């Protein structure tokens, strides 16, 4: 079989009748009369993939913490665990992992009953590069990156994520997308077929 590698150069007859022009024009006219593929942004929005690296959030205590890591950290630091509040154990590993550590401002407090909990957790998004190292470092799956990407604000103060904001983002995320399978586009049925990872069934290993 002969494989076609290049287009042949145009013959002089084809040049005279502008065949190359006509080919180009036929391509553009076909596109001109087919449907547009644009999202009308402020009115329509795409849902980013679940692994999108947007603004940060704190997942809250809801019984789905990674075990036994969470219990170990809680025991080690004597952390007050309160359902609906941040899972943060104030280990400062996120600050350690960060290439710009000064963007984190983390403090813990001691409660009257002798236990500890996080009291201040500020992230200055003006310094952040959204690299996600802090998320990888978090041992209790607390800090994570959400799909929030419209991050413009009117003042520098607004770009600092406080503990309240982080927890709110976390609760919102857990309600919306926590249980969602990990595929690329949420509203794209076509992708589901390509991204078959979630449907993949591993062959069971027979016990000897």
């Amino acid at each position: 079989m002969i494989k076609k590698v290049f287009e042949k150069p145009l013959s002089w007859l084809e040049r005279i009748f502008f065949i190359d022009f006509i080919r180009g024009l036929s391509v553009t006219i076909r596109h001109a009369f087919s449907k547009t593929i644009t999202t009308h942004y402020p009115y329509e929005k795409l849902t980013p993939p679940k692994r999108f690296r947007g603004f940060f959030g704190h997942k809250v205590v809801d019984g789905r913490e990674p075990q036994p890591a969470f219990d170990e950290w809680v025991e080690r630091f004597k952390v007050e665990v309160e359902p609906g509040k941040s899972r943060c154990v104030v280990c400062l590993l996120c600050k350690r992992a960060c290439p710009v550590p000064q963007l984190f401002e983390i403090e813990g407090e001691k409660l009257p009953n002798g236990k500890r909990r996080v009291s201040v957790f500020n992230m200055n998004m003006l310094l952040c590069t959204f690299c996600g190292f802090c998320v990888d470092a978090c041992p209790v799956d607390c800090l994570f990156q959400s799909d929030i990407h419209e991050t413009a604000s009117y003042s520098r103060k607004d770009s600092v994520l406080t503990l309240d904001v982080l927890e709110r983002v976390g609760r919102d995320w857990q309600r919306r997308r926590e249980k969602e399978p990990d595929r690329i586009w949420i509203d794209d049925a076509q992708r589901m077929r390509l991204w078959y990872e979630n449907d993949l069934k591993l062959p069971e290993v027979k016990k000897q």
Partner: protein
Amino acid sequence: MGSLFVQLLVIGIKILVILGVVLGLGAYLTWVERKVAAHIQRRPGPMVVGWHGLLQPLADGLKLITKEDIFPRTGNRFLYNLALVLALVPAVLVFAVVPFGPEFEFFGVKVKPILTDVNVGLLLVFALGSMAVYAIALAGWASNSKYALIGSMRKAGIIVSYEVVITFAVMGPVILAGTLSTYEIVQQQINQKLWYIWLQPIAFVVYMFAMLAETGRVPFDIQEAEAELVTGFTVEYGGIKFGLFPLVEWYVEVLSLSAIAVVLFLGGWSPINIPFLGFIDPLFFLGPLSPFVWFVLKVALLFLFVLWLHWTLPRYRIDQITETAWKVMLPLTFVNLVLTAVLAPIVWR
């Protein structure tokens, strides 16, 4: 006395109508261009201001007018402003010799829908067409910027080459019609029952190329060349002054040269032609309006074709452009001229 007054009134109305239509249309053609470009690239184009962005030209105009008028400190202010006038006036003036339709009677007054039916109309068109190079050369010089200067030099080089070509290209229709008056050329085509494109396909193609070159459209947009020269000679202009140059170059000039092409090759206001046999008019139900509709339709189609080309083709280099003009197009027009001279007696009969 009375008839003189009527004549003056008619001329005044013609001027107002032509100016209003040309400049208003020029502004709206920006919207057309943006829509065509967008759909070729699978985008919807302007959609927000008005229905499908129909008020976008007004918004753009308002924005351009209210912008600060910036002038380069080391430039030449007189030439800088003169360039604008020199660009706008000749481009609009071409419409003085564009015939929009046949002569008609309006309340007993015979009106020719052409501003001045001078008997050297075509000469006027190409004289004014070559004026455009002054505007651009001056704009580039007065801006005192290397991008602007390079852009204007390129444009001057192109226009010098293509003025020769376009003049020889229109010789064919002129020989066939035996007149230089635009109105008479159309009349001749109707009398001879022949659109000149059927006998002058080479001249038409060459004319189209020259038209693209003169108006700085792709594939000859070398004087703008936004990838290399930012926007060429308009770099140092701001606000509405910046807006006027593309308006003139890309819309008014393309429109006027399309109209001249329709007059020369496509039989002006006449309906669809079968060579030497007659005309078929599918728009007969419009009655006396039909010729005007035909004219507008042909110009619009030609303009859309230019847009279509613009958003399809890549850009030639400056040496390729001038080489095509001198080595290919000019000999072709000579050959065409000889052929036309041989064929002409058949057409004259």
